[in-house]
């Protein structure tokens, strides 16, 4: 029997993930003037789910292999494994039908009109797979649900964390809903903002008025700053998140390997870390950006591979502590391999630290992206808050002073970075009882809570 709250999660999260994927790729040129039909047509546009074919093929292979292994080992969760196989089949079909990218072997060359349907089926099947897993492992589902609930209960009491979370939710919401909030055509270099009443061009550096697109005024060529601001949020947050995840994965892997192996292997990894730590970050990132070209995927890679040393050091020091614990010796005695111990015993023990660190690295990554963009090394085809500041700076907005051009991206960056820092410290406090006040530290006993529920039921 699946715990009720876990079931509700699946029912809420499956459509939420679907909506997220739809919104990320929602066509930027939708004309909402055409009414509801146009909005709905946007959700089935051929642009949606336009992922490279190799990614689809890879996912098909991974899901298929996992399902086959599960079935061969005669897992109890037969239905879960069958769902995985179905998922693999859908991915494979998607790769064959949509093709494109690296694949020239596509059966029906690059028919992308069914991408939205494939994406919907894939997300739905993923939801079914989670459901099947939970049905086969009700205890683990209950435990997961209980853990998340406990963390949330503790997190909720931290006002800083809640403020940070609220700000992030607002900005992420703005970024995702950008197609509905601002017309992407306004970012075209040839589309200057006009006064809605008179139809006159507003002209460069027009101060803000109450007109929606002119709420933040116009830039040096008379374009809407608001539209730029809203679409910039996407790139800034996306680059920040992905670069932080990349840097944390690299840093955590190197930190755990260095801490666990120790000896000369550990030394080699740590000296490498030191090299990256002492290299001046900015000049190196600038050189890499100049050499590898300017698009936001490259910026993600550059930030990812230059900002991991801090994480590596922190993770290594915690791994050194965990490594000496007796259960590691016990695991080795059982016959576990080093890889198994690192994955199953060390990683779960340092995971909270990695996660808390990730949240803080997101803030740093967003700042790094802003720095590179401000220096003119950003993606010229996509606006980010840093790019906006760059254009404002080189076109003399600061001297005018056209404050409406400089302040929105500046304040947004400060708010987002501050919020991630708040979330990071709040989460650390949740993890470390020593940082909490005494009366706040009472995480409920799972069994006491269950008993209470039973007792309450009996009374009523």
């Amino acid at each position, binding site marked *: 029997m699946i715990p009720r709250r876990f079931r509700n999660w699946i029912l809420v999260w499956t459509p939420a993930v679907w909506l997220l994927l739809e919104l990320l790729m929602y066509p930027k040129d939708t004309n909402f003037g055409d009414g509801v039909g146009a909005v709905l047509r946007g959700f089935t546009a051929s642009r949606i789910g336009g992922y490279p074919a190799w990614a689809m093929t890879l996912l098909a292979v991974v899901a298929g292999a996992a399902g086959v292994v599960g079935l061969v080992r005669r897992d109890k969760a037969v239905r879960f494994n069958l769902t995985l196989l179905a998922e693999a089949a859908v991915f494979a079909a998607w790769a064959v039908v949509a093709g494109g990218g690296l694949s020239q072997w596509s059966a029906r060359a690059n028919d992308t009109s069914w991408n939205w349907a494939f994406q919907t089926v894939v997300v739905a099947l993923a939801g079914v797979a989670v459901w099947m897993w939970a049905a086969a492992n009700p205890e*683990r589902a209950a435990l997961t649900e209980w853990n998340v609930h406990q963390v949330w209960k503790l997190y909720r009491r931290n006002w800083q964390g809640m403020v940070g979370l609220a700000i992030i939710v607002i900005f992420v919401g703005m970024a995702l809903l950008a197609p509905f909030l601002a017309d992407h055509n306004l970012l075209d270099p040839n589309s200057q903002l006009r006064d809605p009443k008179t139809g006159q061009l507003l002209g460069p550096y027009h101060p803000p008025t109450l007109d929606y697109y002119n709420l933040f005024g116009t830039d040096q060529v008379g374009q809407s700053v608001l539209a730029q601001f809203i679409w910039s949020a996407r790139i800034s947050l996306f680059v920040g998140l992905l670069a932080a995840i990349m840097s944390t994965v690299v840093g955590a892997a190197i930190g755990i390997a260095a801490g666990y192996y120790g000896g000369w292997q550990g030394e080699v990894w740590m000296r490498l870390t030191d090299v990256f730590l002492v290299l001046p970050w900015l000049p190196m990132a600038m050189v890499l950006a100049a050499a590898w070209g300017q698009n936001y995927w490259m910026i993600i890679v550059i930030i990812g591979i230059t900002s991991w040393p801090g994480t590596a050091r922190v993770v290594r020091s915690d791994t050194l502590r965990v490594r000496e614990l007796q259960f590691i010796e016990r695991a080795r*005695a059982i*016959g576990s391999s080093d890889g198994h111990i690192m994955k199953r015993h060390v990683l779960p023990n340092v995971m909270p630290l990695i996660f808390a660190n990730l949240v803080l690295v997101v803030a740093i990554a967003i700042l790094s992206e802003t720095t590179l963009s401000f220096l003119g090394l950003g993606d010229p085809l996509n606006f980010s808050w840093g790019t906006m500041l760059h254009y404002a700076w080189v076109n003399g907005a600061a001297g005018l002073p056209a404050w409406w051009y400089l302040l929105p991206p500046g304040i947004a960056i400060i708010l987002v970075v501050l919020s991630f820092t708040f979330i990071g410290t709040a989460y650390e406090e949740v993890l470390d009882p020593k940082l909490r006040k005494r009366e706040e530290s009472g995480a409920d006993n799972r069994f006491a809570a269950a008993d209470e529920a039973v007792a309450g039921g009996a009374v009523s």
Partner: protein
Amino acid sequence: MSATTATATSAPAGRIEHKGLLEVRGLTTYFKLGVGDVKAVRDVSFHVEPGESLGLAGESGCGKTTAALSILKLLPENGRIVSGEVLYDGKNLARRTEYGMSKIRWKEISIIFQGAMNALNPVKETGLQVAEPIVLHEGVSEEKALERARELFEMVGISAKRVMDFPHQLSGGMRQRAMIAMALACNPKLVIGDEPTTALDVMVQAQILDLIERLRHELNLAFILISHDLSVMAETCDKGVIMYAGEVVESGTTTDIFRRAGHPYTQQLIKSFPNIHGTREMVSSIPGDPPNLLVVPPGCTFAPRCSERVAGCEETHPELVEVEPGHWVRCVHARKGV
């Protein structure tokens, strides 16, 4: 020539004849330190028959845990088996590679670790940890292994509902039971208990000992119990080995050791435990400390603390003497038939 052929036919190639299920022959283990080698275990021999239980006793630092860890080659990095043989099923484990040992560990010989508090990963469900050796050695899925973990939990007297509990949600006794369940996971023939009842209160200690005893008879396990607590040994073991400063000072059946202790060290060790039946008297302790094993004294290692020391004790090293069949004592006073 004919003699060699005879041995070759009686034993299959590479198989070494030995006593019992496991025989340890002249085991010597050193730890390398910066200043020299600590001779932690020297020339230790004993054997265990199938289904038999053997107690290894002695005070802290006498090498009993080192001897046990040497059997499974689980020594720390600076420890090494210098000489001697660990014979199991016709194979010398002391000569085996790490890979070869991983085939023996848990499937044939398993160990109950000291201090269940720390031997369990605090962030992993207890049942999954009990299931870990099954996954590793039998290659089944985690879910299958978890089913077996549930059975094992019931077998050691924990409700199967608790498999998904984290170690901190279990009591000390339950954690120790979980460790025992883990040791039994792959149906071994021999289990080594490294102080399985230390750090538990007396009531729980008795329950755990009863449990071990019951499981031993149900599953026909051979058991090596390592303990500094002679009363625990007296209660559970068929045979005993008393160690002092890295060597065996006395070995024999538990009755031999407790009724007719031949070595002054054993006698004083027994005297240092209160007796609830006899007359009320102060418990005596043994004065002095065990010798520094970096430089092993030439004579009897116990001589400086011995109340029955005679001239020559500190110069000549006594050999083990069989005072009665199966009862061996390492002392100059020991005479056959005492």
